[in-house]
């Protein structure tokens, strides 16, 4: 165990991360530049003629060379593949490098470093490749004590030894000569092994099948969103298409011409503000119900819990009346006087189920901590912010994510609110409404399925990324609260 070598390896890895990050930033920048260059069909009479989208063959000038449509598609596709590989790899590597201890280093770690170096070669990140290969040799030195030279020398010997071992004949035990007990023992061991192998095979077969069943719809969604109209609607859809035929322009059409950029911005605004509001009210209410003694606390809490039994659809109409012209006047007013965001955010800045969830969490924090804080001269509010919230932070994080999810998926309420006010309301659509109500139909009567799917992919993919990044917290939240999700 040479601690210096371990530290050195960690340091090299840290330097590598800088170049990894630089590469990722470059990919993203290149992607954005090229994506911006993509040419859209002309606008005729205020409407984009999407019928001709697949027949356009524009040429692009980039860095002094002329690229046709197919070359452009290929380059953008390769960049996207790079990002899909590089970003998670980067995140996982950073996490591992921070948590890995000196005892966890073995030859597999060195090998995986080498494999990563090869991946870096494929993504044209040559500096990282060099650093990683150097790091591989540092790790080999750490694990085996070999220099680079000694290591290469040792390879033929190791291969020879492996071959010799494979050639070695197995010693066959003559079972006839064994006594009955040993024979039966051998038999049961054999049977055990067989059963084990079959069970393992069955388990993995099942898991792979299930994984495919889950992954294929997503794959199909992304694939279709990249096809042109003919490809998406043909009777014999292709399961694989070459990267030169991935039409990234579909996404550009969806984001700009079909206004999905605006809708995503709306959704993010609503999600962020309603989440901030929810966290604020939830933390305060949960604290009051968990810690502060006041008359009627239990009764009030029971009433709150009871409201959870009323289905949300029941109070939609009354809520609407509250925010509309006869109530607060946020919607249904003459054009220009409507407050669509307020109407969409304010009714959702609190959540009974999260209050309940967080209150249970707060209650688990020992009472003596509160007493200690009181003796230490800590006010109630300071105790909440300095002690309770940090201790319950995993729960609060879970609530945040679940709330972002539910506002991202909200449909009925935003639909009703933005349904008022005609064209003005349409500008405040959230993505779920937009997916449902945007006209993907052309004047010719065609429904642009590939664009519709591209829009859905645009809506789903961020959620998937959030889910994979924070699935521990999400599962935790769903499992414990038993509500939402």
């Amino acid at each position: 165990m040479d601690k210096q070598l371990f530290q050195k390896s960690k340091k090299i890895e840290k330097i590598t991360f800088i170049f990894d990050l630089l590469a990722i930033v470059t990919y993203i920048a290149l992607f954005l530049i090229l994506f911006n260059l993509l040419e859209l069909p002309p606008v005729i009479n205020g409407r984009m003629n999407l019928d001709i989208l697949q027949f356009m063959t524009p040429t692009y000038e980039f860095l002094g060379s002329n690229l046709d449509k197919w070359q452009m598609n290929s380059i953008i596709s390769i960049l996207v593949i790079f990002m899909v590989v590089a970003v998670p790899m980067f995140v996982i590597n950073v996490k591992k490098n921070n948590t890995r201890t000196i005892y966890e280093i073995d030859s597999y770690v060195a090998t995986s470093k080498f494999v990563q170096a090869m991946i870096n070669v494929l993504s044209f990140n040559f500096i990282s490749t060099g650093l990683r290969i150097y790091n591989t040799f540092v790790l080999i030195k750490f694990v085996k004590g070999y220099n680079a030279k000694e290591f290469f020398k040792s390879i033929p010997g190791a291969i020879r030894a492996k071959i010799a071992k494979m050639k070695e004949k197995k010693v066959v035990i003559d079972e006839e000569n064994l006594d009955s007990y040993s024979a039966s023992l051998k038999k049961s061991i054999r049977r055990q092994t067989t059963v084990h192998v079959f069970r393992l095979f069955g388990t993995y077969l099942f898991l792979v099948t299930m994984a495919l069943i889950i992954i294929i719809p997503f794959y199909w969604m992304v694939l279709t969103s990249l096809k042109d109209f003919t490809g998406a609607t043909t009777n014999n859809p292709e399961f694989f298409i070459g990267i030169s035929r991935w039409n990234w322009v579909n996404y550009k059409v969806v984001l700009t011409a079909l206004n999905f950029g605006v809708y995503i911005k709306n959704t993010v605004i609503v999600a962020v503000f309603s989440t901030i509001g929810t966290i604020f009210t939830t933390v305060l209410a949960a604290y009051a119900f968990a810690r502060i003694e006041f008359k009627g606390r239990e009764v009030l809490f029971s009433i709150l819990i009871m409201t959870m039994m009323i289905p949300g659809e029941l109070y939609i109409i009354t809520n609407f009346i509250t925010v509309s012209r006869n109530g607060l006047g946020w919607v249904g007013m003459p054009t220009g006087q409507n407050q669509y965001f307020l109407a969409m955010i304010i009714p959702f800045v609190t959540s009974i189920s999260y209050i309940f969830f967080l209150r249970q969490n707060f209650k688990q924090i020992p009472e003596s901590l509160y007493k200690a804080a009181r003796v230490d001269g800590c006010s109630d509010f300071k105790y909440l912010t300095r002690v309770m919230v940090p201790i319950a932070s995993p729960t609060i994080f879970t609530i945040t994510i679940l709330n972002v999810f539910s506002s991202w998926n909200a449909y009925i309420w935003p639909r009703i609110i933005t349904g008022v006010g005609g064209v003005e309301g349409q500008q405040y659509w959230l993505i779920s409404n937009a997916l449902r109500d945007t006209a993907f139909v052309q004047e010719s009567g065609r429904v642009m399925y590939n664009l519709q799917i591209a829009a859905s992919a645009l809506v789903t993919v961020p959620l998937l990324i959030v889910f994979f990044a924070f699935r521990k917290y999400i599962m935790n939240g769903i499992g414990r609260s038993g509500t939402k999700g």
Partner: protein
Amino acid sequence: MELRLENLTKIFTNKNGQETLAVDALDITIESGTLVALLGPSGCGKSTTLFMIAGLVKPTAGKIFFGEDDVTKLAPEKRGIGLVFQNYALYPHMTVFKNILFPLENMDVPRDEAFERVKDMANLVGIGELLDRKPSQLSGGQQQRVAIARALVKKPRVLLLDEPLSNLDARLRLQMREEIKRIQRETGITTVFVTHDQEEAMSISDKMVVLDFGKEQQYDAPQDMYNQPGNLFVAKFLGNPPINSFEANVKNKQLIINGKEFMKVNLPDGEYFVGMRPENFRAKSDGFIVDIKEIFHIGRDTMIHFDFNNTNIRALVDSDSIEEGQNKVGLTIKPDRVYIFDKETGKVLNNG
């Protein structure tokens, strides 16, 4: 600083209006700089008393004085107390350093001075090297030291300890006992220590208070209390193995045991409770003859079981004074080690 409780009473009322008398008219004066143990069986109101001194529980009646000041209505943080909890109540998300710093932060102590005080205090309790760890990375004894440091860093006028040793293993408990005593001596701070462990209380405290059902039973120095218990409860509560107690009659100023005269007492005739500690018996051939029921040899001492007035009595005598196979033995006991209690009130009648 002197700590005085005057007629301190706490009544808890539950939802159904049932009242529980937790602390019953406590009158105690704790001298400045002493370590006083509140001792009693669980549920006797000792923690409630402590929390009332701390200000976390409001007394139903009575007053609390710190020196000359009446602090009964003062908020906990203004009383200048340090409190150590049974489970230490360290903030789990903060490092040791921040845990100790937290009270100073609330008192708006200047940054440099606060850091200095935290470091000094950590060195005093012997955790100077652990300042950047989280409480979960510490052993029980270390967590306890952090809790004491956090209580002391405010320079409190009174230090309150709520069963601080009950979560530690036996050896650590002995060690921490001495440690607490040392820290208390070094700082000279008036300390109140709650425990249900009589041995702990007797070894650590300058004086102790025995409580039962919220009532003060006796307030004395540990050894005096052991030798001169004020009543039957105190006599039974202190000592291991426990005191032998049995009923006996007094006739013509003579205590009658097993139909024979045992010793002379200056009490009117009648029935009384008698208490004798096992270790106060001596085996002597000219003593009171009893039939041995059982003998247990436990090294240095020998435990003898016999009957006094049909009650099983244990005596702890020197192993040398008992021979193998002996079935009768003569026992003596000093008259001032025989405690005679009133049958009604449980008050001691011949001693103290």
